[in-house]
């Protein structure tokens, strides 16, 4: 009864009557989509894209998986900036809010603890595998990082006490590690070969693996901290200089 009332109230709040303006928007969006759809269906794709170009340069890229080759070699600069975007999201979140108070010691069911104990290491293993596998099959830093992040979320959800004991500078270093290794590699390539991100002959595979590992760690940490929803309590200004 009470719940029904609540829902009714929400309904009233959230869905205004279907007025003229909405109808207009609907109509406009409909027109837009129809137009774009017509263009899509009328101009079939004629050019083949870059598949051929990538395939022809595949063996110079140092990895077997074409996606990884594009991500970390041919268009490594994009990926470098994307990693920065991820870091930026964390900085933004930290600048906005403190992490919400942990809920007071509610005891976590032993089943959940067991699941966490079992799952977290497995996920880490899977992540490591994915990163390593990235060079020749599906997988790579992003996927590995995502799995790591999911593991982090799992740990955060189960309110493990030692999580709060991690000093902030460790977190900061962890966050910066991937981007820093990436930029560092790019710059050392610049000094060795004269061009940014041009891996020296024969080292491409290893360097890509290095970057991927570091990035996967940072991405995982980033995603987990994004879930954390704010800067850690102890992140006071001036107090965490390493």
């Amino acid at each position, binding site marked *: 009864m009470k719940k029904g009332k609540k829902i009714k109230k929400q309904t009233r709040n959230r869905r205004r009557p279907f007025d003229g303006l909405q109808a207009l928007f609907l109509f406009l969006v409909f027109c837009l989509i129809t*137009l*774009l759809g017509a*263009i899509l269906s*009328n*101009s079939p*794709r*004629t*050019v*083949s*894209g*870059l598949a051929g*170009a*990538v395939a022809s*340069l595949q063996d110079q890229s140092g990895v077997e998986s074409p996606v990884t080759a594009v991500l970390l*070699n*041919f*268009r*490594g*600069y*994009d990926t*470098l*900036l*994307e990693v*920065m*975007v991820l*870091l*930026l*999201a964390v*900085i*933004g979140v*930290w*600048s*906005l809010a403190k992490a919400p108070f942990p809920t007071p010691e509610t005891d976590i069911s032993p089943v959940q603890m067991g699941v966490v104990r079992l799952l977290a290491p497995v996920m880490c293993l899977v992540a490591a595998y994915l990163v390593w596998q990235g060079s020749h099959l599906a997988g790579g830093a992003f996927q590995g990082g995502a799995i790591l992040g999911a593991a982090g979320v799992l740990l955060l959800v189960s309110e493990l006490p030692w999580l709060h004991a991690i000093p902030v500078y460790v977190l*900061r*270093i962890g*966050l*910066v590690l991937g*981007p*820093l290794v990436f*930029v560092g590699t*790019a*710059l050392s390539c*610049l*000094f060795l*070969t*004269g*061009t*940014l*991100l*041009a*891996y020296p002959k024969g080292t491409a595979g290893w360097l890509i693996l290095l970057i991927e590992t570091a990035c996967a760690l940072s991405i995982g940490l980033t995603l987990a901290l994004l879930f954390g929803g704010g800067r850690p309590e102890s992140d*006071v*200004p*001036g*107090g*965490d*200089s*390493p």
Partner: protein
Amino acid sequence: MIFLADSPSWMITPVILPLIAGLLCFLFSRRTFVIALITALINLFVACLLIYQLLVFGTIRYYIGGWRPPIGISLRTDGPALLMLLMTAVTGLAITLYARGYFSYRIADPVRGSRHQHQQRYFWPLWMLLLAGLNGLFLSGDIFNLYVTLELIGISAASLAALSGKPASQRASFRYLLISLLGSLTYLLGIVFFYRTCGVLDLGVLQNTAINEPGIRAALALLTVGLLLKTALVPLHFWLPPAHANALAPVSVILSALVVKGSFYLLFRFWFELFAPIVTTSALNFMGTLGAIAILWGGIQAIRQQRLKLMVAYSTVSQLGYLFIAFPLSRTLTGVPVWSAVIFIALTHACAKSAMFMAAGNVYLHLGHDRIRNLDGVRASLPITVFAYGIAGVSLMGLPPSGAFIAKWMLLTSSIDSSQWWWALVIMAGSLLAMVYVFRVMSHFFVIPKRESLKETTPLSPLLEWPALILALIALFLSLLAPWLLHILSQGSTGLAQLFPGGLP
């Protein structure tokens, strides 16, 4: 070998250096200002060096990773790009100094100091990454890479806008973030349409393949809408004034002077270079009409505002209109390269608007509010700030020695030459509106308050006042640099040269 003056590797410095600086600023909590300052200085130096390289060697392309297009990403320098880079570097340096002064002043406040310390802690990395994004945008020669830099800019700008922690600013910033995301997605959809028609992402290659067919036109429309959202052209401007007016003073400067210019610069490149062959006159007229509405609407709104920062923000809306009114006028061949008017407006606006927001921020710091009614007597206590405000206002009005005057001259010439009267009328009406809103505030500054009601405040540091004044002076005397700027613009912008055979100076 890398550090020689003629090495092309300098081109990556404006992107990579602020990136590293951003990482370091995030990692360390002390001496962040020093890192930022060194970065801004090197950035300015490199911008000048790149212009030197452009003048000596012509346009340069840099293939990242050694992979040539279409497979790799290339950076390239040409006149417009480097002028925008220089503009960012100059204003960036001023902003860095100003932000330092701002935070020192705020942190000295015994009551709220710690909050501002925390703001400063996050300001520097965000600002450095934003700088990297802007520089990357100006230099990039790859349409998807541009998307990434747009994301970089959008996210850092939204985070910066929310930094002040006030509910109003956070609400505005949320809206800004959503709009920015919507813009990026529309842009990405445009890229998709592009890629499936042309199969390449590199702008240089695209230029030769951009043909007039529905897919490309749809792509152009989508890219344009996406960028217009970010540039805040009327009627898509609704998010801009609250976001710019409620942010911290240095952030307002960054948002108004630089961030909107980033997305506008892309529009400029797409419409004047990449897609110039397929752009129709009616499309240009449409953009011009929007610009005209923006000039008038923004001006009227600016006059109606009760708060100084909101007034300055609406003035941005109005000034952005000038950038677009140049679109329909660019097609007349009068011997004067009218498209360069856009660059002049952008440069003047960047400097003048920075100075204006800095001045507004100083007034806010000094009085604790920015209600226009109660600004009496500020001239006596903040002479330099008021002077900077006045000079910046003069530049925004487009009075003679400012860079905007040159632009206005070109636009008027073009509109009279092609007997398109209405544009000339709008341009003049816009500058009269600017006169009204600038001097409405100015006259309050000059009022001698009836009683000495000004409370005792700590004097503002030179770091707060001088950057504003210097930027305002640059804006005011920009037209004296016009021959030099035109010379740079004529270097290496191949597409523009093709569009205007013999039209370049």
